[in-house]
């Protein structure tokens, strides 16, 4: 029932397209949105541990001290930063109705990528200044 039975050729898919900035940010917006979904579940676990008391919190804090977990956290912040930057662009597109030309859209995509990295660096600096958790 669910098998694809249509014998006509499929339209070209992902692998035939040259990567370009707007394609990258479009895909990243969805991927980072899904990543943020998982990250929020992590935030809830962290809050629950804090509510459960010092012992439960210490367990979570022990995890947070691991360098591999730092990389995951940095990835989570990068995902959030890129999603916010790309989200702002979507709001600009939808409500101001500007930035639709290929030139502007490509430029916007590069700004999103750069802005996301800068935002992540600022958060990392902030965390480092606070004593790295």
């Amino acid at each position: 029932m669910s098998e694809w039975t249509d014998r006509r050729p499929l339209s070209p898919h992902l692998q035939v397209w040259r990567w370009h900035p707007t394609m990258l940010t479009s895909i990243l917006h969805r991927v980072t949105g899904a990543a943020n979904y998982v990250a929020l579940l992590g935030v809830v676990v962290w809050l629950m541990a804090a509510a459960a008391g010092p012992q439960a919190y210490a367990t979570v804090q022990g995890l947070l001290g691991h360098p591999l977990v730092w990389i995951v956290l940095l990835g989570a912040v990068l995902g959030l930063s890129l999603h916010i930057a790309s989200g702002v662009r979507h709001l600009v597109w939808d409500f101001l109705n500007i930035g639709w030309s290929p030139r502007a859209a490509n430029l916007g995509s590069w700004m999103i990528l750069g802005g996301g990295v800068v935002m992540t660096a600022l958060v990392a600096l902030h965390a480092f200044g606070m004593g790295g958790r």
Partner: protein
Amino acid sequence: MAGPAGTSQRTPLGRVRGLGAAGQGVGGYLRQRLGAVGLLILAPWFVLSAIRAASGGHEGVVAWLQQPVNAVGVALFILVACFHMRIGMNTIIEDYIQKSGSRLALLALNALVVVAAGVAGLYAVMMIGFGN
């Protein structure tokens, strides 16, 4: 409902309402953007504020959430984030899952996960805020 053509008492709008790929009109689109605008402020605030709080260990986090402004801010962040991410994940499921059974199951799972996360997050914030 679906009598001979032209005899239905329902307006064209009433007939199409609830149909379409997502089973809804532009409602999700608008709500998604409403949540996005709220999160534009709430999410960066939460990340920076939570990192500062976490640097003080358990006591730091408790002291942070016992400030009413912070407790309300975090509660709002959790609520709006759950609202926004449910719509987003629904869209992803609707786009990629063709089988109606699995699609319905995943949409239901998404709803449950989001509600569970929201309730757990709010409960934790209130428990700390009201002073254990």
